[in-house]
């Protein structure tokens, strides 16, 4: 699949990753356009159902980006998000979707470089994995 362009959903916490994404912008750090951000007030707001629906609708990859350990504005939303991601990864495996397509990442608002780097790495990874089996089956 040479011209495969993955579609990746990134649930980004308003206080860290979303700001980091803006910062990547103001620093003009290029990264692949495959990542589409959905802003949430806290990564802890990301619902298992939203993650699974993203895959059902055709996402090739999903990641949740929350604050660094101990930095959550709401105390522990980032840690809760990480647990949900781990739980849903197992479920994806049951369904027959590579669990690597779902990931939790952490960064602070100042980490524009990291945002761009994560976006590139995850895009590369998903590109190598190929289209999601769901999308492939539906096509």
């Amino acid at each position, binding site marked *: 699949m040479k011209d495969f*362009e993955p*579609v990746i*959903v990134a649930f980004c916490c*308003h*206080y*860290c990753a*979303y*700001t980091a*994404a*803006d*910062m*990547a*912008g*103001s*620093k*003009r*750090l*290029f*990264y*692949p*356009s495959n990542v*589409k*951000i*959905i*802003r*949430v*007030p*806290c990564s*802890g*707001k*990301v*619902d298992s*159902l*939203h993650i699974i*629906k*993203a895959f*059902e*609708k*055709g*996402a090739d990859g999903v990641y949740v980006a929350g*604050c*660094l350990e*101990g*930095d959550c*504005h*709401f*105390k*522990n*939303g980032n840690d*809760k998000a990480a647990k*949900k991601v781990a739980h849903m990864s197992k479920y994806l495996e049951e369904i027959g979707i590579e669990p690597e397509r779902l990931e939790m990442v952490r960064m*602070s*608002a*100042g*980490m*524009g*470089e*990291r945002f761009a780097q994560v976006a590139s790495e995850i895009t590369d990874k998903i590109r190598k994995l190929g289209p999601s089996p769901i*999308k492939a089956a*539906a096509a």
Partner: protein
Amino acid sequence: MQKTERSQTNNRVLVVGGGLGGIRTALDLAEAQKDVVLIDRANNIGGLMTQLDRTFPTNNCDLCTLAPHLSESNRHEHISLMAMTEVQGISGEKGNFTVSLATRPRYINLEKCTGCGECLQQFPECVSFTPGLDHRAPTCMRYPQNTPQAYAIDLSKCDDVAGLVKCCPAGAINPDDLGSNGDIACSSIVMSPGASLFDPSGLDYLGYSENPDVVTSLEYERILSASGPTQGRLVRPSNGAQPKKVAWIQCIGSRGLQKGAAPYCSGACCMFALKEAMVTKERFQEDIETTIFYMDMRTFGKDYERYYERARDEFGVRFIHSRPHSILQHPGSDQLELGYTVDSNSSLQTEEFDMVVLSTGFKIGDQAKELANRLGLELTSSNFPANPGLNQVETSTPGIYVAGTFQGPKDIPETMVQASAAACMAGKDVTPLEADSEQEPLLPPERNVVGEEPKVGVFICDCGENIGGVINVESLITRLEKLNHVIVVKAEGHGCSRESMENIRQTIEELGVNRVVIGGCSPRTHESKFQDLIRKAGLNKYLLEFANIRDQVTWVHGHQPEQALNKAEALIKMAVGAVCESQPLADHSLPINKNVLVVGGGVTGMTSALELADQGFKVYLVERTATLGGVAAKLYRTLEGDDIQDFVSNLIKRTKDHEGIEVITGGIIVDHSGMPGMFTTGMQVGRQMFYRQIEHGVTILATGARPNRPELFELGNSKAIATQLELQELIDQDAARVKTWDNVVMIQCVGSRTADNPNCSRICCQNAVKNALSIVELNPEARVFVLYRDMRTYGFQEEYFQKAREKGVIFVRYQQDNPPQVDHADDQATVTYHDPILVREVKVSADFLALSTGLVADEDSSEELAMVFKLPRTEDGYFLEDHIKLRPVDLPVPGFFVAGTAHAPKTISESLIQARAVASRAMTILAREAINLGAVTAKVDSARCASCLVCVRACPFDVPFINADGYSEIDPAKCHGCGMCASECPAKAIQLLQFEDDQVLSKIEQLFEKVVA
């Protein structure tokens, strides 16, 4: 130069210095409905803190915590911000100052600049940078929340002025900018321009100027920082290799230890070094060794001792009690050799390190000194503004107040406290503005859109070249026009310009648009602006979605215009999907009860009460004992010599006489309900335990701490053994007896910094110094021995410590595991201790043994109050503030504040500062007619609720509860809007408004519309 008259009225406060403290002062005043002019020399506000990587004791990145304060200060209607501006001169007096200001040219029109950075891209050399460690710092906008959100031009470095002007897509560059001079009238002035850091270049033996691997602690901070010159990679400046061994040397430029060093202690460097060492260890674990060379570890702040213990015990930071005397680099070696001696061994030790960090202290720089002179402020010998009495924020000139490191060396929490206290003082000199009189023009009524088919208007900014330069906005519009529910798509140039905003408003009104999508920059910076716009167009402000097609599309996919166009289309489609699901929401607001409840009738409580009552608020001051005065009533003099008895009795008299204060003694709080702005608190009063209720808008806790009296060192078993508190009474009341003493011993840290009570009591070292000085004054022949673990005479107290040493007071260090031994007779105490210099036991027969027993939290009252008010406490029983750094006197429950020793041990003048700080914080609430709580709150659908308690348990703030009907209930006034309950609810009974499931799922659906039909 233009000469402009900036204002006629003087009903405002001038705040000089836009660092953290200045921002806090300005925000406090503005929230109390008072006008402020905030000026700063630099291009942007933020000060020193924006250069820090992480801050103690939370070791968090501070960008995210500071940023909201910065943008808040820019938006605030009562604050006018003037960057690149300095004070030239002053005339007039309190209530009516005239200050002349000079503003340097920025060569950029702030009204037009969008912060796009095109100028920096094309003419990097002309855009002025802010000095970091590296001259090639990537941008002069040090961080994304920069305020003002604009660059500055250094015209002297520019060869092609015409080219530069042309490169700006917004036409904001104006080479003819001359800057401006002008006068401003104001009633009071708060000075918080900050301090400078000691420059160690002059100290040859440290090799700072020659050796790149010797850095100051701030430079090290920049190296660690993700936004610093190395992007957070810790490397040796000399060779780019990762260091394996790093040493910190404390007290550089402080405590009079070096040539040119200040005589005082800089107060913050010990914690600063601990933080850097811990962060370093945290990142590199076993790969790196960290060593701190110190004189006294001064971790005297709230819970700081614990931090020190963690550094030592959990992180393995090594501590050496020594003052290194040289840093050498031998020819051919790339290692730094530290030479030092330790207590028990007089021979020279050496050890090699890869990097050495100099913990440089604060000093008043020439600019600040000159500024103080221009204002006519009296200065101390160290060039800090002299203050006339117990109120640290006052100066020799009435109406001019100081805060932050300009007042004296200190850390961030203390700066924040002083900043609020200064706001309290300065605010007294101005009258608040009628909240509604000059408010926004009348808004049209909100159109009822419920039940209407969504009619979405999409407005796309090209933001000059920022968006339009990468994607073709016209073809984007063509693609979007076919979308379901979209009735209009328009390009709007610079959407945030006045003209475009007006166009958008007209389009909404003319076409009956009932949902709006803005395709442009980030909602973080512009959402509220467009919310206001659609509200003016008669729509509820929550019927808006943002598609961030600049920061997150064109700026980052400039190399792939086609993909950028596709992504912009996708993001806008998602926004359209979400906005169709959005519903009008009401901001929650509550009316404010303007009464204040102050709990605790010590000096702190009385001072808070008086400050608030003076500004017209009704105060109930509840004291559980029968009398006012608290612990201070037992004190006689401060270290600086102020008469406390006199002060306290004056304060009591003023409090009792004040019309606005109702003093309730013998009052015990028993119940409490309500929400911020409308609390009801019940108490039992007097011997009859008569029950009464008080309604109030805010609550201030000033319940104090209790003098500790542990049964250690034979305390209580001999007349010759007593606490420092008792000693100071003897000194004042029975000088004749004190004069007869030949030998006096003092033991520090009695019952503090122990396993039972791990924190430092903060006040004891200066107490010991104070009493020791009094004793040698009464009897110059007396020999006073102070046995200590670390002398913690921080800040200006250090000078008294030095004075005591000069007067012959003997200070001997002891180790916690080898404490002095005490034997007693009825009128004598024999103290045996290990002398680390003599390396042997020494026995002293003392006429008096004073134990520095410090303070402990008053468990009785604080535990009960914590339960009644549902407030958290620290492990050792003090009330726990909301944010240890930035909100040190705000409690986590909105509407509650803490001051004085109920917060942590502190001196009287420190307590008084907090007393004024809480008054200021309280006024930020009391000045409003209502509290707006926003609309992003969780809402329970009781028909679906299974009462499973998941929300109750998931909420980080304990807001949800199962109500009398048996369903979960979430009080919108308390909800913080994180949405964790919504995401965990197994019955899908909770929605977080503005981020509802339908909105999120609709975004997903729109994104994949093509993939699965």
